[in-house]
């Protein structure tokens, strides 16, 4: 492509054909005012404020849409341009109510800023305020469309970025405005309260509601959302030590100007009155406040006593998939070198152990293989057992953009209708738990129809023949029979995926929390390799629930791996660390999270340190977990809140929130992102890193770090893919680690498009039916998953005033047919009974559920896991938490079960 040269304000500049005058001007540092332009949106040239003049012919051009052409002589500030711009702005202001002085948008109002810039006083246009606030009950967003200047940014953001389609223009002429379908309030529309439109609106027409703190932010801090594994970059507006608003970072490669409701409106937990402000110590069954010195010396003494009396393995540490990489690194170093045990695990055990095992055996590394850009440019996207719109919204946005604007074909495999199914070219609804049969069936079909990527399979993989043979009894007829999916649809899916130029497979907890989770992940990897889509083109995308699940594992907060997935049994690896840490390391693999609890029950583990996790909500059989933990001699909990878990502790250490500390989080795709401190910790709470270092000191083994930077330097030396060069490659999505020491085991990325072991390995997996207790009248299958407005174990989201207000309680979804059959309706209270436990909840009719399937969100303290058995799968040592067999009992007025 030849560059085009134009003269801009007297200076020749050049750019590629297709570049807009505005983009070229911005690149060249020339300012042009804009109103309807946004870097992440398609330009429409609606406001014409960005006018420039072509001096050759006097043409006035909207620079945001006018492409450069050879010979242009552009003036951005000629008297004519200035005059026109002023006129336009005055026109806009003339139809704008002059309530600016009381408008909350205040200094963030772009319209007001432009008026000031051009020297147009607002008083000149004094008018009667015409409040037109739409009655809206939601606690997130309010609209006053009398302030709307019809730039269309909100509509474009809604349709082009988050692809929800909640709003569009309505009416014509002077009555035109952005509206929902049938002009209903947002909470009755498709709106998901992602807040993306609020962030782009240049006026006070769409604004954040119910802000606890108002005013103009003094500083803006760029950091990372602490909820899901997407790791969206957020801008926190800070005033007087409070977060007064949250905005998406427009330039982040992860979220590109978007957020979800949790990121936009759920970060107020930071200012919850429930925050712990000082250390607590239990005296005669009651907590009393104490100093750090006392709290930490008690903890250190008790841990050392237990270690002396019962051995280091009588101690266990559980935590930190929400904490930073530095904190996880320190925690595992403390556990291994000071406590002297490998009994350390983190909360991601419950949902990503299957990926570690499954992808580890096949690809040789442990996570997502590509970046969101790879996903978005895929021509076929295969989503199985995942509802990313709810669990990992930024990933869903990318998928929907690929479908809507880049012509990708979407295959959704889910028994439930999810927000993605309406975008799908193909939606298959397998019976729960039959994914392996389905995946094997598709693989066999692709081989039989000779649609596999022969070249890739030959050059990059091994064990193909043995694996292919293992598929022999996954015939179409049998797979149809097992999964309930028609042959025709199986064929269509296989052909689509195999025919993809670039195909990506996205999976989530529907895969990783089923009983045969590791097997299902292996089957996914097999299918990806067969179609040549593992790493080189397309990829495998494993959703992560918690923000730093990936990082916690990378840092070695695992019982069987040292930092960077170095094997515990590797003498060399241990020796390197022993020399650095001046200690001797145990080679005995530690206990996983659930095993620690079982060991507590058996009296083998006697003391535990739990950081930011709540096993009493997140684990199966919470009441049994509580009993087991109650047997411990000593529990220390570091948390922001006095959770159910903290209530059991002898000592509770107040932890700083994400907004009150420095560090890094690693997102689901392995991108390492900077967390920046925006606020001082509440009370005398401390970042977990500081807590761990002080505890090490109190235990007589101080760690040699005086800053987080030093911790980071040690991490970079020990974990090769945290080396800055590697991290930079991860960020650009270009997996080439040639300049890193690639003889180190456990590199996460594919380098040179190759697998870490040199080849990927096909591994046979067999489908085994779920043995469910459908006897005893447990005739429903209950499926458990995420919810949009509450998150994980709910510690934080239940303390976000707005999230809680909007989505107050737990519920159980049932199809209308099943509800009819039971004689219950949408307001009935029911008792849900499984072979393992029971709970009470309210029913909600969801007509898109197939008969016999129930759905319940996990993130309410309703204890849904009480229904699940505490059985661990052999490979992953994780419990199956996706489905279980239940029956329903109607509760009558007087509370009797019927």
């Amino acid at each position, binding site marked *: 492509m030849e560059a085009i040269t134009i003269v801009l304000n007297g200076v020749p500049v050049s750019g590629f054909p297709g570049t807009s005058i505005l983009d070229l001007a911005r690149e060249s540092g020339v300012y042009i005012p804009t109103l309807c332009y946004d870097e992440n949106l398609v330009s429409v040239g609606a406001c014409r404020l960005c006018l420039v003049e072509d001096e050759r012919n006097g043409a006035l051009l909207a620079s945001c849409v006018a492409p450069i052409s050879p010979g242009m002589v552009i003036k951005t500030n000629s008297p004519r341009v200035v005059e026109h711009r002023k006129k336009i702005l005055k026109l806009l202001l003339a139809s704008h109510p002059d309530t600016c002085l009381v408008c909350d948008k205040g200094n963030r109002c772009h319209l007001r800023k432009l008026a000031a810039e051009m020297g147009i006083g607002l008083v000149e246009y004094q008018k009667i305020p015409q409040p037109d606030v739409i009655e809206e009950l939601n606690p997130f967003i309010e609209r006053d469309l009398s302030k709307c200047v019809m730039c269309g940014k909100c509509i474009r953001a809604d*349709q082009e970025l988050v692809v929800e389609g909640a709003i569009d*223009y*309505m009416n*014509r002429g002077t009555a035109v405005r952005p509206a929902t379908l049938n002009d209903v309030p947002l909470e009755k*529309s*498709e709106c998901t309260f992602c807040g993306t439109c609020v962030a782009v609106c240049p006026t006070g027409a769409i604004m954040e509601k119910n802000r606890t703190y108002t005013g103009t932010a003094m500083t803006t801090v760029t950091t990372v959302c602490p909820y899901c594994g997407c790791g969206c970059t957020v801008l926190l507006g800070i005033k007087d030590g409070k977060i007064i608003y949250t905005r998406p970072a427009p330039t982040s490669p992860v979220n590109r100007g978007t957020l979800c409701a949790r990121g936009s409106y759920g970060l107020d937990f930071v200012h919850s009155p429930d925050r712990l402000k000082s250390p607590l110590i239990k005296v005669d069954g009651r907590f009393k406040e104490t100093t750090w010195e006392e709290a930490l010396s008690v903890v250190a003494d008790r841990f050392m006593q237990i270690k002396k009396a019962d051995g280091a393995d009588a101690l266990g540490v559980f935590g930190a998939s929400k904490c930073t990489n530095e904190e996880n690194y320190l925690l595992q170093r403390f556990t291994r070198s000071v406590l002297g045990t490998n009994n350390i695990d983190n909360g991601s055990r419950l949902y990503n152990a299957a990926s570690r095992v499954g992808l580890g055996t096949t690809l040789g590394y442990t996570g997502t293989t590509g970046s969101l850009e790879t996903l978005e440019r895929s021509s076929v996207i295969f989503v199985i057992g995942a509802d990313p719109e709810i669990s990992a919204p930024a990933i869903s946005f990318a998928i929907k953009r690929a479908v809507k604007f880049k012509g990708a074909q979407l295959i959704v495999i889910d028994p439930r209708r999810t927000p993605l199914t309406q975008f799908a070219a193909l939606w298959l609804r397998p019976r729960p738990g039959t994914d392996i049969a389905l995946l094997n069936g598709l693989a066999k079909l692709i081989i039989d129809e000779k649609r596999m990527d022969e070249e890739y399979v030959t050059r990059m993989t091994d064990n193909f023949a043995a694996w292919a043979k293992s598929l022999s009894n996954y015939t179409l007829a049998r797979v149809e029979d097992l999964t309930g999916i028609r042959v025709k649809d199986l064929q269509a899916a296989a052909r689509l995926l195999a025919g993809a130029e670039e195909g990506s497979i996205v999976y989530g907890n529907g895969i990783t929390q089923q009983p045969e989770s590791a097997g299902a992940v292996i089957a996914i990897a097999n299918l990806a390799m067969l179609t040549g889509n593992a790493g080189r083109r397309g990829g495998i995308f494993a959703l992560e629930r918690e923000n730093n699940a990936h990082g916690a594992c990378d840092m070695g907060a695992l019982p069987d791996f040292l930092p960077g997935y170095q094997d515990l049994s590797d003498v060399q690896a241990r020796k390197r660390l022993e020399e650095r840490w001046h200690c001797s390391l145990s080679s005995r693999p530690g206990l996983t999270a659930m095993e620690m609890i079982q060991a507590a029950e058996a009296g083998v583990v006697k003391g535990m340190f739990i950081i930011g996790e709540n096993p009493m909500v997140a684990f199966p059989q919470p009441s049994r977990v509580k009993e087991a933990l109650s047997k411990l001699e000593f529990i220390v909990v570091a948390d922001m809140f006095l959770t159910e878990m903290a209530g059991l502790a002898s000592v509770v250490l107040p932890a700083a929130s994400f907004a009150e500390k420095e560090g890094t989080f690693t997102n689901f795709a392995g991108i390492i992102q900077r967390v920046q401190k925006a606020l001082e910790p509440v009370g005398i709470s401390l970042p977990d890193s500081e807590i761990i270092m002080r505890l090490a000191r109190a235990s007589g083994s101080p760690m040699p770090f005086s800053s987080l930077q030093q911790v980071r330097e040690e991490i970079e030396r020990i974990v090769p893919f945290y080396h800055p060069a590697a991290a930079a490659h991860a960020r650009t999505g270009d997996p080439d680690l040639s300049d890193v020491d690639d003889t180190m085991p456990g590199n996460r990325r594919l380098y040179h498009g190759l697998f870490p072991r040199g080849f990927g390995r096909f591994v046979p997996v067999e489908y085994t039916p779920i043995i469910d207790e459908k006897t005893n009248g447990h005739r429903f299958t209950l499926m458990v998953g995420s919810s949009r407005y509450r998150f994980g174990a709910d510690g934080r989201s239940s303390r976000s005033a707005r999230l809680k207000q909007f989505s107050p309680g737990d519920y159980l979804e049932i199809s209308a047919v099943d509800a009819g059959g039971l004689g219950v309706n949408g307001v009935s209270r029911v008792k849900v009974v499984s072979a393992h436990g029971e709970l009470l909840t309210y029913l909600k009719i969801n007509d898109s559920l197939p008969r016999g399937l129930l759905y319940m969100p996990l993130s309410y303290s309703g204890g849904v896991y009480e229904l699940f058995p505490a059985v661990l799968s052999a490979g992953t040592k994780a419990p199956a938490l996706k489905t279980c067999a239940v029956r329903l009992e109607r509760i009558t007025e007087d509370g009797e079960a019927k």
Partner: protein
Amino acid sequence: MEKQNKAPAVNMKQVEKIITGYKGQKWALIPLAQEIQEKIGYIPPEAIPRIAGSLGLFPSQVQGVVSFYSQLYTHPRGRNIVSVCRGTACHVRGGKSILKLVKQHLGVDEGQTTEDMEYTLETVACLGVCALAPNMMINKDTHGNLNPKKISRIFGRNKKE
């Protein structure tokens, strides 16, 4: 006074059938909307999500287009369209009271349709026969030099209080 029209039940089957004919053709929104209006008389709001689903658009987008064209209606219209002029010439000669009278007679406001689906009341900017002001039009017939008596004669049987 919120007068909701009791529209005759829409034959959604028929609507569905029309929609199916355009499946997957994003560009066909306007012809599709026109065809529905031609056959059903208007575009029932409940048809909008179906149209959207079939064409691969968002319902809000379809509503945006439908509400943009003044010739596309989302409410059922009466068998007769009454257009009272509110142009300047008519205004100075009492057009406003004429409108008020018509409203009284029909028992509906501007933009509404009588319960029996007989009349839809609209206003227009100027009918182009200012000499006869005040004017109104019923379907294709112009009625000029209006006065209360004439109005009563025209709508006599329909007077509602």
